[in-house]
């Protein structure tokens, strides 16, 4: 996952807190071993390598990961897609670089991507690719959330009632609240205005994930290329600065932060319809939103995060 995880937690003493944090970090290491597409020995890499040759039986946890990934692919009409690995490589983003591939190069990749080419058989807990070739599954848009959720469940089982788990600051889960507080305060920056906070959220027993082009991107000929791809166009998404999603599940908020990044706002509203406890905040760049600063779209978001604010007019946390 290539992400630094941090955990703040309250326990009966420092030694216990350290042991609990280590327990959670061990779990995150285990998930990294399971799902990393940078490790040929991971279970996800084994499936990528072998499922083109016929059904590959996998363990229930990995199967659940794949089921949830395909669930979001279907619900988002393919905006979310873990088969985009070849695109990240073609665009030079697999190794933190960046290049613009030719149109011919991209078209040649068309048959190598597409979530609908993954078939799952729940009865036999197996995976097969209809391409009859190896695919390149990339957990980048959901793996961090899956790891955070696993760590959350483990810490709860170990009796932790107050903790904040963070995957690189982009996916957070709050277990309970800090003692005497109503929640874990989390600030959501307004990327249109440096130094301005759009909202301060008080997280409690829920997760928050952010997708942004402000940290992972490359610039070529003066154009900024984002690391989040539209699988349909096979190109980086344009015109979106940042998305933030709150969801009871860290796996889901991680996936949804990509879903609403890729989909147009109205389609995002449809994708989120009927999901309990799920809110989204989308900041658009100048090209796609109203001039001059770009737009802001709030979906089920409590409060008014889109109203213009100065650094001194920060929003109070909502309950």
């Amino acid at each position: 996952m290539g992400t630094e995880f941090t955990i703040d937690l309250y326990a009966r003493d420092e030694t216990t807190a350290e042991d609990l944090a280590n327990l959670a970090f061990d779990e995150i290491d285990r998930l990294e071993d399971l799902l990393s597409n940078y490790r040929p020995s991971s279970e996800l890499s084994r499936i990528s390598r072998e499922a083109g040759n016929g059904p590959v039986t996998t363990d229930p946890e990995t199967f659940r990961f794949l089921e949830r990934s395909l669930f979001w692919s279907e619900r988002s009409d393919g905006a979310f897609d873990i088969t985009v690995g070849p695109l990240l490589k073609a665009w030079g983003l697999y190794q933190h670089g960046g290049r613009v591939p030719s149109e011919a190069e991209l078209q040649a990749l068309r048959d190598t991507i597409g979530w609908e080419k993954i078939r799952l058989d729940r009865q036999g807990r197996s995976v097969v690719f209809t391409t009859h070739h190896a695919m390149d599954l990339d957990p980048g848009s959901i793996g961090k959330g899956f790891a955070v959720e696993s760590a959350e469940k483990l810490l709860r089982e170990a009796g932790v009632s107050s903790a904040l788990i963070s995957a690189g600051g982009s996916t957070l889960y709050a277990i309970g609240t800090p003692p005497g507080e109503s929640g874990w305060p989390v600030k959501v920056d307004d990327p249109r205005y440096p130094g301005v906070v759009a909202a301060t959220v008080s997280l409690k027993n829920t997760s928050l994930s952010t997708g942004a082009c402000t940290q992972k991107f490359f610039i070529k000929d003066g154009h900024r290329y984002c690391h989040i791809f539209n699988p349909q166009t096979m190109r980086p998404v344009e015109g979106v600065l940042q998305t933030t999603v709150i969801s009871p599940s860290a796996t889901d908020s991680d996936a949804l932060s990509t879903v609403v990044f890729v989909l147009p706002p109205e389609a995002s509203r449809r994708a989120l319809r009927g999901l309990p406890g799920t809110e989204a905040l989308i900041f658009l760049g100048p090209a796609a939103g109203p001039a001059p600063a770009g737009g802001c779209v709030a979906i089920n978001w409590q409060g008014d995060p889109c109203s213009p604010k100065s650094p001194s007019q920060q929003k109070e946390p909502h309950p």
Partner: protein
Amino acid sequence: MFAEISIAAKGTAPLITRRQFTQAVSAVAVSSSASLWNRPASAEPSAIEAAEADAARQIAPTKDSTPFRLGIIGAGSRGQELIRSFLRVPGVSVAAAADVYEPRFAQLNRICGREVAAHKDYRALLDRKDLNAVIVATPLGLHGEHVTAALAGGHHVYGEKVMAYTIEQANGIVSAAAEHKRIYQIGHQYRYSPWIRAAVLRVQKGEIGDVTHIMGYWNRNNDWRRPVPGPLPDPSLEHLINWRLYHEWSLGLIAELGSHHMDIANWVFGEYPVAALASGSICRYHDGRETDDNVQAILSYSGGRRFIFTSITDNAKMGDQLWLYGTKGSLNLTLEDATFFYEPKKIARAPARAAKDEGVTTSASYNPANEMPYRGPGKPVDVSTAEDPTTAATRAFVYCVRTGTLPIADTKVGLGSALGVIQANESLRLRKEVAVPSQG
């Protein structure tokens, strides 16, 4: 990689090079223990290839989905990881579990995605007639009792390392497997790692010359503790959850970490060790534990060859890695890869045969590194199927049970590392070198 310059060396006989000398030593050493191994380092190339082909059959992906029902004794963290791996094998399901710690059953149910029959007494699990095999992943001090009972009960066993807490128990497992004609596979999964197998094969073919020393590091930076549940520490659970820290069931870092490396040393050297010398202390974590938080162990093999293991738990810089040092190069093995490094070529051409009392002229190369460590890249071992070793090992076990094949990591392999672990701990206790009793 290395800059080479030629120098002319002059001298007189003896016409035996250092390489030839060490070859001669290792040939004697290996032949004395060849019966222990189906593939010693000196084996004929055809025998090596045949053994490798057999290993490849065991490890290969399978489409066979014949129902295969497992029972597990000891469903703690390692047992759970084994279950995850076993469930990647077509046809495998978990039918029953035995554990003395109640929360393990719910954890196991979550991993399996279904209700697994729970037994508080392992003997009830062994009485079941619906199991194809049993996993034993209890604390080390219980392996002897649990594995022997399982074998005697007619079950094939996948047993976590180390094989047993005492040599007598280990020999008991060897005897029980033979007597009851049951398969026993030890959890030395690195025998099934594609990159380690490929690298060791190249070592056996002589790629780095004669391996005389192997160094193993397994360093961490944590206290090796698992949190004990509850609002207040429960002393009765402390020894159960943190059994690795107490002598009753644990042989400490040498067992839990070093045994994997000792197994690879046995594999590469082609024999069991003959003596063990170890030290250790509690240097960092003065928290009531009994087993050391740092250990150093040396296993001696024939011909003066040595395996050296060190583990510290307050600095993780070296991580988990093995270095095989041969006369022509080195091999670095890690959890994810294998990399070769080569010595500067000191002798570029065979010396011309010289008449008595005449000088010998030869050609050699020399790397003027002033004994600075080499810091450049090595030559990685390229394997196309670098899958998780435990996934491969568990699949191979199912293959062996289904087909009646002797496992790669069989009782002899298990006994070998157990001997090293047990005697190294004995040395640590006695503070002196101890012999490893010869077997058979």
